[in-house]
């Protein structure tokens, strides 16, 4: 599948933003984050910037961005529509929770129920995002439960690492808690990503050139002549091939930068170099973002679509 920049930024950015919102409310309610105005403003500001930036970015690849509001109408059948609705609705509870935090320095008692609802809806939004891809039977690499698990774990993971960075920036004593949480999520994320790749690499073929043409009874099917001499929309959008050449190396880069390096840096910040915490945290964020963007690029670029069976693929 063609890895559109807007969609990569949408899924990684809004994922991290909703992850941050979920952790802010969850840790706030449990008393692991200070109900401080300045910190609250910066933390929620960052989370909303990512969420809004991601959602806006997702409209950039539309043919008619001005009609984007129409996408909210088909929640009965469309995961894209559901995602849009839940994403917007999540601003309600998380916004009220953020207001109470920033203006009334309250994040764990009266605003608790609102925050809890915000946690649930943030995660529901990420789940809907994952289902846009996970519901497509035509792309077996996405039509697996690991898609939903990955999106949820990576949103919580990137959100936690970003939150840790802000805790370090504000020199909060709670940084230690968020750091340990991030370590756990990075380790979990690494396992999930490896399991995802194992599952797609070992999956049996869903469809074949024989089932696509219905001619399997006659023998092995091979394309002898394509219907057009130049790439058409289908091949540009669904027949993306560049990644496969470097897939192995890119997978290692994604694992290293997205999971292993941030893990080591957080361990270093916790136990090795507490005086350089901010520099280490900045490096961890830069590495983590690069890694997760690479991971998401691969998620799109490596996924094969069954329509390519009509263009020379033999099994998908």
């Amino acid at each position: 599948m063609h890895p559109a920049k807007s969609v990569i930024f949408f899924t990684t950015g809004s994922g991290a933003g909703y992850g941050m919102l979920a952790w802010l409310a969850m840790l706030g309610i449990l008393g692991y984050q200070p109900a401080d105005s300045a910190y609250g403003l910066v933390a929620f500001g960052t989370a909303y910037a990512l969420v809004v930036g991601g959602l806006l970015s997702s409209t950039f690849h539309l043919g008619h961005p001005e009609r984007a509001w129409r996408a909210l109408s088909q929640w009965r059948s469309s995961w894209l529509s559901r995602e849009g609705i839940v994403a917007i609705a999540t601003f309600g509870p998380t916004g009220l929770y953020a207001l109470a935090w920033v203006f009334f320095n309250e994040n764990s008692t009266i605003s608790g129920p609102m925050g809890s609802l915000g946690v649930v809806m943030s995660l529901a939004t990420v789940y809907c995002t994952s289902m846009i891809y996970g519901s497509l039977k035509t792309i077996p690499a996405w039509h697996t439960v690991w898609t939903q698990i990955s999106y949820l774990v990576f949103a919580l993971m990137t959100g936690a690492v970003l939150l840790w960075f802000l805790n370090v920036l504000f020199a909060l004593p709670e940084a230690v808690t968020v750091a340990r949480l991030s370590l756990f999520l990075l380790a979990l994320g690494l396992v999930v990503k490896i399991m995802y790749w194992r599952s797609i690499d070992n999956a049996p073929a869903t469809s074949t050139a024989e089932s696509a043409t219905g001619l399997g009874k006659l023998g092995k099917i091979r394309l002898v002549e394509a219907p057009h001499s130049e790439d058409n929309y289908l091949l540009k959008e669904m027949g993306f091939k560049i990644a496969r050449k470097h897939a192995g190396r890119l997978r290692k880069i994604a694992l290293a930068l997205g999971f292993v390096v941030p893990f080591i840096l957080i361990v270093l910040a916790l136990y090795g170099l507490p005086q350089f915490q901010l520099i280490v945290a900045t490096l961890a964020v830069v590495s983590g973002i690069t890694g997760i963007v690479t991971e998401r690029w691969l998620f799109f670029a490596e996924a094969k679509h069954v329509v390519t069976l009509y263009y020379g693929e033999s099994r998908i």
Partner: protein
Amino acid sequence: MTSLPRKSPRKKLGLVIDLDICVACQACAVNCKEWNTSGHSAPLTDMNPYGKGQDGVWYNRIHSFEAVNEETGDSQTINFPKSCLHCEEAPCVTVCPTGASYKREEDGIVLVNGDICIGCKLCSWACPYGAREYDETEGVMKKCTLCVDKIYNQTLSPSSRVPACVSTCPVGARHFGDLGDPHSEITRLVEARGGFALMPEQGTEPVNRYLPPRPKQHQKPKDQTPRMLEHKGDSTDGAGLLARWVDKVLSV
């Protein structure tokens, strides 16, 4: 609107394509383009028509496949026209976030309302058959309309009220009709010839059917060798009187 019709439409208009006959002349694709570029989802834009990297919207495309029987070694070429199959469980319809993509209750035709399509392309991702074509210049998705503006067109003669690809096919490889009616000519044709659906494992339940090519008659290697002419040498044995006389004259 994007939910599929609650009751599966009783009338299921669709195409039946005879792979035994198709010669890949491309006439169906060309006539489809010609009719539809001024039809329901007009125009069928072309990008760079005279330059490098020509691209454009086509509803119908003809692939050619080779089937190799691994036991006998026989191979066979099959020309394979492909357009929208107007699925009963159309995934392109249910994923549409706007309601632009819909399946008609009255005849099962799957259409796109270009006025409300946002061009998110998700329907093209959901379709296993590559039936959807994105129009870069208009920013909306387009697809085969089964010539909805032709098949019901009262100003045309009744015999012309079939999709453009069907009326133009010079070899009669394309049939149009109601596949929901068990007594229709087209349904009986499908039954008689063992018509099949494409990628049934995708669960889309296409309406269109394909008729299989007749299997190639397997020939033993002995039969395959062409008749060899024996070298007659200089002898005129067995030749006619005139031939012998000419031979004598020319041999002087």
